[in-house]
């Protein structure tokens, strides 16, 4: 163990930060700075039980970030280009991080020269979280600046041990973290899937119980895939029509309804029903017949674990389907709906799919990104969206 803990840590694991001033040489690229700061925090949330959220300068926060030069009021003056690049305060002293504005900061690691903001910020936030300097030279928390590695893989074993001693490992419910691609044995190796790694947008995703095992499937076009904890199962993709007896290609949405061991599949104005993984006879039926009040050509559907209700998404709106409306006692949609998707804080319009994964967390997918939804906070978790290809398809 060569890392060092300063001795204080945050009591909460959800930390808010705000950027109080910006680097003078990047005032025309604040988004780039904002992304790099987010990525620097994400490097720590990926390996610990922490999560981070940026708030506006008018809101309360745990960590304040400033770019300042020379004597900037904390008794620790900066020294101009080179030398000291930045410093930060441990949690007991407030956790703020200050960066020397006289440095030539860069947000693109491929750019020649300059000081890589991501590397320095990830280091300083280590102090903001309670880590001191490590004497392991290659550790992120070693005191000396190292030119950036393009893979952004700056947090090393020594840093991980340190941060997990303070805040534990990522919550078990995190989506499968990108694993190194060395399989446990050549037999396990599944080459990255050309279709999903090329374009990771999906039609629909589904997690169901198959013979007591949780299985997660991806549907896209006329194919489907089965996922493992680190990517795509060998032997996939397969054709939907070969294995899902009679289901159409290019599905719009899938809604598992576990209580009745049922799964509903939606496409255009029709829907199919499966019971015990067998397609029920007499389907497809019109959506309006089985789900009165729900529109055709859906984007996504799911049964929300927080209240057991079925939700349907289309464009910028969503509907809640009640199996027993208070007013009529019959299945239907209350006249309060549709409502704007923006109510689901952080979820974009025109989503592709919603998945309740085996870890019981709610994930929204759109294009090549996905969002983990915090059911309790009713908002997307900090450090999302993330890359679907990287985290789910092992690309």
């Amino acid at each position, binding site marked *: 163990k060569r890392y060092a803990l300063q001795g204080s840590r945050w009591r909460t694991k959800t930390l808010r930060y705000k950027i109080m001033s910006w680097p003078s040489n990047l005032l025309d690229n604040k988004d780039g700075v904002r992304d790099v700061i987010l990525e620097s925090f994400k490097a720590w949330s990926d390996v610990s039980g922490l999560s981070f959220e940026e708030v506006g300068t008018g809101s309360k926060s745990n960590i304040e970030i400033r770019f300042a030069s020379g004597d900037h009021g904390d008794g620790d003056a*900066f020294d101009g280009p080179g030398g000291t690049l930045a410093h930060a305060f441990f949690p007991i*002293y407030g956790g703020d991080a200050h960066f020397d504005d006289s440095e030539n900061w860069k947000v693109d690691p491929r750019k020649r020269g300059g000081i890589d903001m991501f590397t320095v910020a990830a280091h300083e936030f280590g*102090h903001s979280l309670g880590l001191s300097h490590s004497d392991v030279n290659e550790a992120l928390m070693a005191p*000396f*600046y190292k030119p950036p590695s393009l893979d952004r893989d700056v947090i090393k074993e020594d840093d991980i041990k340190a941060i997990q001693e303070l805040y534990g490992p990522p919550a078990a419910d995190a989506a499968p973290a990108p694993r190194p691609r060395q399989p446990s044995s050549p037999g396990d190796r599944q080459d990255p899937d050309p279709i999903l790694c090329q374009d990771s947008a999906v039609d629909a995703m589904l997690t169901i119980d198959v013979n007591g095992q949780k299985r997660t499937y991806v549907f896209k076009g006329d194919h489907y895939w089965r996922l493992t904890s680190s990517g795509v199962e060998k032997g996939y993709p397969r054709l939907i029509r070969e294995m899902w007896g009679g289901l159409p290609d290019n599905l719009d949405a899938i809604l598992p309804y576990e209580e009745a061991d049922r799964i509903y599949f939606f496409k255009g104005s029709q829907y199919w029903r499966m019971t015990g993984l067998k397609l029920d006879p007499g389907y497809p039926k019109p959506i309006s017949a089985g789900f009165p009040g729900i529109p055709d050509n859906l984007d996504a559907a799911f049964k929300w674990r927080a209240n057991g209700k079925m939700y349907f998404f289309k464009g910028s709106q969503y509907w809640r389907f009640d199996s027993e409306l208070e007013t009529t006692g019959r299945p239907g949609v209350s006249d309060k709906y549709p409502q704007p998707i923006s109510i689901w804080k952080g979820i974009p319009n025109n989503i592709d799919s919603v998945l309740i994964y085996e870890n019981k967390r709610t994930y929204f997918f759109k294009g090549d990104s996905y969002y983990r939804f915090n059911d309790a906070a009713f908002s997307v978790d900090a450090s999302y969206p993330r890359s679907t290809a990287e985290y789910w398809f092992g690309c």
Partner: protein
Amino acid sequence: NPTLKDSPPESIIEAATYLARYGYSSSSPTEDKSGALVSLSSNLEEFQRFAGLKVTGVLDEATIEKMREPRCGVKDKLGPSYRARRR
């Protein structure tokens, strides 16, 4: 330590200032010369160990170079003076 005495005074001052800044000594270079020189050597050894350099206690080229590398401003050693200052 003869070699240390042979170093040009500005690099001794520079080194002592650096070591004080990053928590390797509480004494600053202006204190009693011989005291500063003795503590400098043992503080140098501590810095060289932490920075992964050859531990010699001597202000050699590698050590001066390392001290000139860009770095984080937080001290490597958080002694009682650190806590007092921060409060």
